[in-house]
C-alpha cells in the first residue's frame, strides 16, 4: 500500500499517537481503564498498521523479529520474578505488599511491574503471530 497517498499519510500521522496511547494505557492502568493486556494489543496494532502500510521488511527493520521473540518470555519472566521477589522478601507468592515498607506503595509497585510484564508478553505474542503469518504469505 506504499503507493497510496491517503493511507500512508493517515498512518504516518496516527502511528506515533497510537504508540503513545499504548504507553499511556500501560502506565495509567491503575488510574483509568486499561492495563497491560490492552496496552500490549494497542502497541502491536500500531506495529501491524505500520507493516501493512509500509512493507513487512521495513517494519521488521524497525522492530526486529528476534527482539520481539525475546520480549515474549521476558514479560512472563518479569511477572514470575515479581512473585519470587515477594517470596524472598518474606511474603507469599505475588504478595506485593512486602515489596516496600508501606504495603500500599508495595501494591502500587507490584501492580505496575506485573502489568509491564503482561504488556510485554502480549505485544510480543501479537507481533510475533502477525510476523509469522505475513512471512508465510510473502514466502509464497
Amino acid at each position, binding site marked *: 500500500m506504499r503507493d497510496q497517498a491517503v493511507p500512508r499519510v493517515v498512518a504516518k500521522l496516527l502511528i506515533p499517537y497510537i504508540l503513545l496511547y499504548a504507553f499511556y494505557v500501560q502506565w495509567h492502568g491503575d488510574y483509568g481503564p486499561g*492495563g497491560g493486556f*490492552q496496552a500490549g*494489543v*494497542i502497541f502491536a496494532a500500531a506495529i501491524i498498521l505500520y507493516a501493512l502500510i509500509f512493507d513487512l521488511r521495513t517494519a521488521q527493520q524497525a522492530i526486529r523479529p528476534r527482539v520481539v521473540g525475546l520480549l515474549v518470555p521476558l514479560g*512472563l519472566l518479569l511477572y514470575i520474578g515479581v512473585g519470587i521477589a515477594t517470596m524472598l522478601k518474606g511474603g507469599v507468592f505475588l504478595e506485593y505488599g512486602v515489596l516496600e515498607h508501606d504495603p*500500599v506503595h508495595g501494591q502500587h509497585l507490584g501492580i505496575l511491574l506485573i502489568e509491564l510484564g503482561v504488556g510485554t508478553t502480549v505485544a510480543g*505474542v501479537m507481533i510475533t503471530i*502477525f510476523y509469522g503469518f505475513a512471512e508465510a504469505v510473502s514466502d509464497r
Partner: protein
Amino acid sequence: MNWVIDIVLLALLMFTAVTIARLRGLFSAAIVAGIYSLLGACWMSVLDQPDVAFTEAAVGAGISTVLILVTLSLTTSEEKEPKHTPLLPLVVVLITGAALIYGTIDMPRLGDPQAPTNLHVAPRYIEESPHEIGVPNLVTAVLASYRGYDTLGETAVILTAGVGVMILLGGARRRRWRADDDKRDRA
C-alpha cells in the same frame, strides 16, 4: 434516552451477524466481522465496561481482522457451497438460542446490588481495596492483585498460544525447505 442507544446498537449487532452468516465472499465477511467487533466494543462501553471495550476494539476489530485477512490470502477467499441443507444447523441454532433466552429469565437485572454475584467477594473488594491496594481503578486492583494468580495464568496462556502458532507456521516452512532440498538433490 439510553434505551434508544441500546436498541439501535443491538439491532445493528444482529444485522451484522446475519450479514456475516449470509455472505459467501470471505473477504467481505472478515470486514463485516471487524465491524461486528467494533459494535461490540460500543456495546461494552454502553454497559460501563471500558476495559472490555478497549480489548474488543483492539483485538476483535483490529488484530484478529488482520489475521483473518492474512489467512485468506494464504488459502482462498471464497466459501465453498455447502453440500447439505442448512435446515439442521438452523434447528440447532434456534433451540440453543431459545434455551439461552429462557435462561436469562432467571437472571438478575444488570447491576442489581442484590444479585448473588455481587454479594460474594465484591463487597469486600469495594470496601477494602481503597486502603488495601490504593488503586483507583478497581478492575486493575482485582485483576492484578487479588487475582494475580489468574492473570499470571492468562499471560502464560497467551505465551503458549504464540509459541503454538510459531511452531505450526515454522513447521510448515521447514517442510517446504526440506522439499526444496530434495528437489535440488534429485536435480
